[in-house]
C-alpha cells in the first residue's frame, strides 16, 4: 500500500501548508410516483482546490483572476490573507473550474 505524505501540489501562493481538492457534481434526479429516485443524471461537474500557505511577500491576485494550484487551473473564487501578532502571515486561496469551461478572468 503506497501512502503519500505532505503537500505535493505546487502553485498558488507562498509556502504551501495544505491543499484540498474537492470535486462535486450537479445531479438531476428522476423520481417515481412513490418519490423514490429511479434515475440520476450528472450534468455538470465542479473541481475546486483550496490551499493555505505561509505568505512570502509575493503579489497576490484578486478574486476572479486565473490561477493554477496543483493540477487545476481555474478562477480564484476567494483569496484571503490573515495577519496575527502570534503567527506568520498566511494566505488562503480557492480556485474553481466547472466542466471544460473556457476561463475568462475578471477585467
Amino acid at each position, binding site marked *: 500500500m503506497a501512502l503519500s505524505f505532505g503537500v505535493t501540489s505546487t502553485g498558488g501562493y507562498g509556502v504551501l501548508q495544505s491543499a484540498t481538492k474537492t470535486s462535486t457534481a450537479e445531479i438531476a434526479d428522476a423520481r417515481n410516483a412513490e418519490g423514490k429516485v429511479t434515475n440520476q443524471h450528472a450534468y455538470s461537474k465542479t473541481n475546486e482546490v483550496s490551499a493555505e500557505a505561509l505568505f512570502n511577500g509575493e503579489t497576490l491576485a484578486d478574486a476572479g483572476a486565473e490561477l493554477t494550484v496543483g493540477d487545476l487551473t481555474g478562477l480564484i473564487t476567494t483569496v484571503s490573507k490573515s495577519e496575527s501578532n502570534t503567527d*506568520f502571515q498566511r494566505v488562503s486561496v480557492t480556485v474553481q473550474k466547472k466542466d471544460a469551461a473556457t476561463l475568462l478572468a475578471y477585467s
Partner: protein
Amino acid sequence: MINDVVSAVISSLKLKAGLTDKTIVRAYDQSADVAAAAGTVIEVAGSSEVKAADATGKPLALDCNLTVKVATHNETDKSGATRRQLVGHVFDWFMALSAGGLTITGYALNGIVSVRESDTMPLGDEYISQDVMGTLVIVKN
C-alpha cells in the same frame, strides 16, 4: 538546535545589565558552584516544537519555549528582594528581544510570541525560585 538556542540565550543574558556578574547556566548543569554563586543561580532550559513545516514535514520554523529559573538562597535572600530584582531583569531582557536579536548558527530569531512569569516556588531545601518563560520563533536561514 535547541541547545544552540539555549547557549545563545545564556550568552545574551550575561550581557544584560544587572545580570553580568551572575551565574547563568543551562538547566541540569551540575558544575555550577552554588556557594561561589553567592546563593544566586539562574538556570536556562528550553524545548522546541514545529510551528511551520515544509512538504516533507521538516520544520521551517519552530516555537522554542524557554524557561529562565531565577533561584536565590533562602537565608541570603530572606525577603526575596534579590530574586524579584533579577526576575525583573530577565523579564526586561525578554521584552527587549526582537527579530535578529540572537546569534544562532543556521537559524535566526524571527520574533517572540509570549512572555510570562510563574509564581514563586521552593527549589530543594535551600533555594526559592521564580521562572520567567518566553516563546521564541526560530526560523531556518
